[in-house]
């Protein structure tokens, strides 16, 4: 029964993934890609990786999909396929891609027989941190440097996106397309859903210490609520020069770094937690990160600032 489900899921993944590659219409391709992301998060559940599944559904499918939908809508005009590829080239590309796929698939049969695993060492040291979720433990204790840099990457991405604004628009309002229809279903949703989403996001962040969830997943839910409010036109996106906004953006990385440097004082190493204080420090860090992640994700999707008259 379970194998049957897995086979169906694997086939469905290949079909839906293939559909989004060959779809003629760009919007179709993007929407199929979102569906693909949701199917993929099911596959992650089957691989016993609930944390990854939540992230894939929220970021890989939801946030990436939304970015692509906005982009596909804006470039919908250029349907002209500029490069006319010959049939021979298509066949050549297909053969090359098939070789790559077969080569990687064949690796499944030459993987070393005895898989190595860090699960046991992680579980052995996890109680010291006060966390119950091993993945959160890896993210915030054992490999917290990775997590810190990941937040910095998000920050850099936002700077990169803002840098693409025209000089005249700098400091202005992000050019998210608004749907200002006063009595639409979207407006109703944007007014009723956010309170529920807020509670859910806080729960996800808090529960992430012990069960699947965490700052990133909670932050994405918050971001989704904010985007809903902006898209429905209930609230305009803020000016990117607004000081509270800038503060919210850097809060996460700053708190993270501050706690990291605090480690020099107590246990004597960067990003090390003083004994007995690991859990409260991690929760403080996660709270600041949730806020920053929500704001950064929302702004990344809202795009660079754009003047009122600009196209």
């Amino acid at each position, binding site marked *: 029964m379970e194998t049957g489900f897995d086979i169906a899921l694997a086939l469905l993944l290949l079909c839906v993934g293939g559909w989004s590659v060959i779809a003629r219409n*760009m919007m179709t391709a993007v929407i199929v890609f979102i569906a693909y992301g949701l199917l993929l998060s099911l596959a992650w559940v089957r691989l016993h990786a609930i944390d990854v599944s939540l992230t894939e559904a929220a970021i890989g499918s939801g946030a990436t999909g939304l970015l692509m939908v906005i982009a596909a809508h804006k470039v919908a005009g250029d349907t002209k396929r500029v490069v006319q590829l010959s049939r021979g080239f298509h066949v050549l590309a297909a053969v090359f891609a*098939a070789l790559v796929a077969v080569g990687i698939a064949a690796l499944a049969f030459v993987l070393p027989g005895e898989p190595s695993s860090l699960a046991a060492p992680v579980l052995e040291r996890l109680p010291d941190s006060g966390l119950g979720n091993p993945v959160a433990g890896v993210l915030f204790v054992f490999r917290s440097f990775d997590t810190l840099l990941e937040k910095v990457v998000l920050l850099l991405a936002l700077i990169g996106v803002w840098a693409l604004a025209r000089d005249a628009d700098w400091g202005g309002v992000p050019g998210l397309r608004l749907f200002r229809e006063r009595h639409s279903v979207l407006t109703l949703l944007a007014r009723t859903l956010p309170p529920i989403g807020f509670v859910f996001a806080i729960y996800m962040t808090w529960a992430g210490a012990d069960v699947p969830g965490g700052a990133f997943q909670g932050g994405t839910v918050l971001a989704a609520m904010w985007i809903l409010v902006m898209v429905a036109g209930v609230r305009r996106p803020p000016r990117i020069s607004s000081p509270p906004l800038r503060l919210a953006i850097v809060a996460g990385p700053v708190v993270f770094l501050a706690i990291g440097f605090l480690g020099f004082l107590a246990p004597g190493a960067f990003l090390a937690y003083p004994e007995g204080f690991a859990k409260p420090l991690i929760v403080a860090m996660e709270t600041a990160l949730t806020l920053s992640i929500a704001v950064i994700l929302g702004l990344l999707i809202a795009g660079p600032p754009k003047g009122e008259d600009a196209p």
Partner: protein
Amino acid sequence: MSAALLFWLAGSGLIGLSVYGLIVNPHPLCKLLALNLLGSGVFLLFGVIARRGASAGLGGDPVPQALVITGIVVAFSATAIAVALLLRLHTEAGEASIDEEDGQP
């Protein structure tokens, strides 16, 4: 046939599909989509490796799982920049294309 092996095959198939899409689709947005698909296929392979490392009562090795989470976030950041670049190109040139200028009328 175990779930791990099945999803390994699915992951490699997805990588193949997206490599094909990356080569033949001329529009930058399609290429970006294929690149994201390629990334998800690679992550899936990594997930299978995490699943093979199931031990000590856990369903999978938490270290590769945490790395995949970081990977998904970094992939999203890269996509956000790429989309912003693409849209700016579209505003400037009237069309997003990665072709040489002389191909334009």
